[in-house]
């Protein structure tokens, strides 16, 4: 299985209806195992549609999608694909099924027919990985948005997936919740080697990815490292996207003749630059 790209999309075109315009237009994409990819794009650019094609919720109109070498159009493989490429959705309320966190994490395991005695260790492990162990008997409606999303992630982790697809999983969360979810997913990517496809419209979040894709009109408009992508401010503006706030700030400082690196991506990097410019400005 090594050597085969984890996610392989070939000439993918998708229409919602036979005579509707193309929601996705001849997409080619190859994601190696363990990569953290962020997909950006304004509303209607096709990024959510692409996510739903990656685990077989939608099937290609033309072209193919392969996950670990399995074709999503293959009826016999569809459940393996969905188990392998777990998906977290936007609305934290509308993806939890059971009345208790613990039972909800078990839901996926029940669906794939895991023997009951094997479930508790897998559930406990998934809850520990997402930091939700202490909430295991809580009812979902008593959790915060960020906690609900972490339960959703735990529900997928219990199924031992190889890839996580997060379709604007932070869009409805407060800043604290966004941070919790992003940190959880980054840790899973680094420690467990899980491939991550992170769909978002928050530029700041995309700075933490290894690779950024920008979508526009159903096509991949830009593909590169966060630093390459966010350096192209004018191109991004054409695609109706902003640069991350810290990059914006660094550019404005640069325009005022301050000797700061213009390709700062996030707060951590900006702090480093400020420390370099003015060692006494910041404590520690």
């Amino acid at each position, binding site marked *: 299985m090594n050597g085969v790209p984890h996610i392989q999309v070939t000439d993918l075109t998708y229409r919602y209806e036979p005579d509707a315009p193309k929601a996705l237009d001849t997409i080619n994409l190859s994601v190696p195992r363990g990569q953290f990819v962020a997909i950006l794009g304004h509303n209607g650019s096709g990024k959510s549609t692409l996510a*739903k094609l990656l*685990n077989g*919720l939608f099937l290609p109109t033309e072209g193919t999608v392969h996950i670990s070498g399995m074709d999503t159009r293959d009826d016999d493989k569809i*459940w393996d694909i*969905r*188990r392998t490429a*777990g*998906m977290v*959705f936007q*609305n934290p*309320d*509308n*993806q*939890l*099924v*059971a*009345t*208790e966190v613990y*039972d909800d994490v*078990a*839901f*996926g*395991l*029940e*669906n*794939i*027919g*895991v*023997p*009951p005695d094997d*479930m508790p260790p897998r*559930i406990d492990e998934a809850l520990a990985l997402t930091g939700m162990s202490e909430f295991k008997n809580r*009812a*979902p*409606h*008593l959790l915060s948005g960020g906690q609900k999303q972490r339960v*959703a992630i735990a*529900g*997928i982790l219990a*199924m031992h997936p190889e890839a996580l697809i997060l379709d604007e999983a932070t869009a409805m969360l407060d800043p604290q919740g966004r941070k919790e979810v992003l940190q959880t997913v980054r840790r899973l990517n680094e420690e467990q080697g899980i491939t991550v496809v992170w769909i978002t419209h928050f530029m700041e979040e995309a700075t933490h990815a290894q690779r950024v894709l920008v979508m526009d009109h159903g096509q991949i408009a830009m593909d590169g490292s966060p630093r390459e992508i966010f350096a192209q401010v004018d191109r991004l503006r054409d695609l109706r996207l902003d640069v991350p706030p810290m990059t914006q700030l660094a550019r404005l400082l640069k325009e005022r003749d301050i000797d700061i690196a213009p390709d700062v991506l996030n707060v951590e990097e900006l702090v480093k630059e400020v420390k370099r410019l003015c060692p006494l400005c910041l404590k520690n």
Partner: protein
Amino acid sequence: MRDITLGQYYPVDSPIHRLDPRTKIILIFLYIIAVFLVPNLLMYIPVAAYLMLAAWLAKLPFSMLLRSLKPMRILLIITFVLNLFFASGTQKLLQIGGFVLWQEGLLTALTFSLRLILLVTGSSILTLTTAPVTLTDGLERLASPLKVIKFPAHEMAMMMTIALRFIPTLIEEADKIMKAQTARGADFETGNLMARARAMIPLLVPLFISAFRRAGDLAMAMEARCYRGGEGRTRLHKLAYTKRDVLAFLSILLLYAIILLPRML
């Protein structure tokens, strides 16, 4: 509005709580039949004693049982009064003006009211000692032999679970919409019944639309988590009968014996 507990589950640990939900459901059915089989007023004593024993074993405070009767109080009074005055018989007990109180009337009134009280408190012991989800599990297992005749046992249980999961969410949402509409001048509290019913429309329409949207989202999320109906599905919670369940079944047999044997002899 935040902490909504569903149903009336009374969470303590007791032998009755730990009974298999299937046992409890079957027992309640048998108990209800027993209540209807009681031949005379005197024989309500063992039935009531059985009920009290169950409540005591379940560590339920007496007030919890009384509370379950509260919604029934008007029906109880009507049942009692109607049977008291509209029955006719042979033994006059009391006469006030045109009203005659017959002995038979008093007996039927007592019988019917007692029957009602025993039925309601009996079934409330089931809901007080069984968490809704466990109850759903039990119903699913009990109904699963009916799958042979295409009865959707698993689907029914799944719908009940989802309903239990989403009732608090929808109540919260209704509360939010209501506040939003009130802020814009909607009036939910005054006016006659018709006016108040009409005022509910701007609450119900958005609530329904959002419920349908949620249903669509949830269906997709369930599919993404490999849900494909009851076939090939395993369950986290195993149900197993224990010695305790056998004892429970024996106890109801004993109750039947007490009620029915005198009649047989």
